[in-house]
């Protein structure tokens, strides 16, 4: 667990080189990234350092959008067909708890945007062996 904590701290440090992050946002980003990273346990996903940095940038933008009530455009029809129900569920699980704390509604587009990162982090199995 300490190793995960250290990795996530390094990820946030990397992001803070480019983005301004308040102490509160840093804590919230850490918690969201921790929830993402937890999904590595069942062996279906792999989150490399670089992937976590990308997801971190995305989640920081999500936190800021929530702060400013920024709304996103809808997802083009058909794109949801390429997202598995399992990934959609994970995306909702990560974002829902956070959004509920602020008594806000979780936007479908936000679910989709994070789901794309989960799809990109799936471990593809070739010949029965993991091939990340």
């Amino acid at each position, binding site marked *: 667990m300490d190793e995960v904590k250290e990795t996530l701290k390094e990820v946030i440090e990397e992001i803070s080189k480019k983005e301004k992050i308040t102490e509160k946002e840093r804590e919230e980003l850490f918690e969201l990234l921790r929830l993402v990273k937890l999904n590595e346990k069942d062996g279906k996903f792999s989150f490399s350092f670089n992937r976590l940095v990308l997801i971190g940038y995305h989640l920081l933008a999500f936190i800021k959008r929530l702060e400013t009530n920024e709304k996103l455009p809808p997802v*083009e029809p058909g794109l949801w067909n390429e997202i598995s129900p399992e990934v959609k569920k994970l995306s909702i699980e990560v974002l829902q708890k956070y959004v509920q704390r602020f008594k806000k509604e979780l936007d479908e587009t936000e679910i989709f*945007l994070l789901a794309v990162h989960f799809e990109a982090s799936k471990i593809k199995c070739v010949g029965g062996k993991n091939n990340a």
Partner: protein
Amino acid sequence: MHDKVKVVIGDRLGKGQKVAKGVEEAGGIAIVIPGVGADMKVGDVMNKENADFGIAFCGSGGAGALTAQTKYGYPVEYGLRSIEAGITALREGKRVLGFGFMDIEELGRRLTEEYIKLIKRENKDV
């Protein structure tokens, strides 16, 4: 070599058609990447198509640009929120521009016009 400016566009929400129209209005060739994760494929398609520059849309604008930088070493700028910021990035030599969601013709047109100006200036200086 290609004579026309070639621009790759990847939008995570499946858009980008209006930006593409703007690119074409300015005399460029636009390649809009279809499907899920299009923003993260901008570097791949730029490399394959030998494109001049790329535009990635993903909310923060970071994922597409950073993936292109990591995989191919393209100079990138992301977190862009205005056309002017995009033009400045092009002038600074950035070749993958990461925006929030801005599928508007003016963005494609003005970035392509700026790139054409930059090329002409470079050719004059040589």
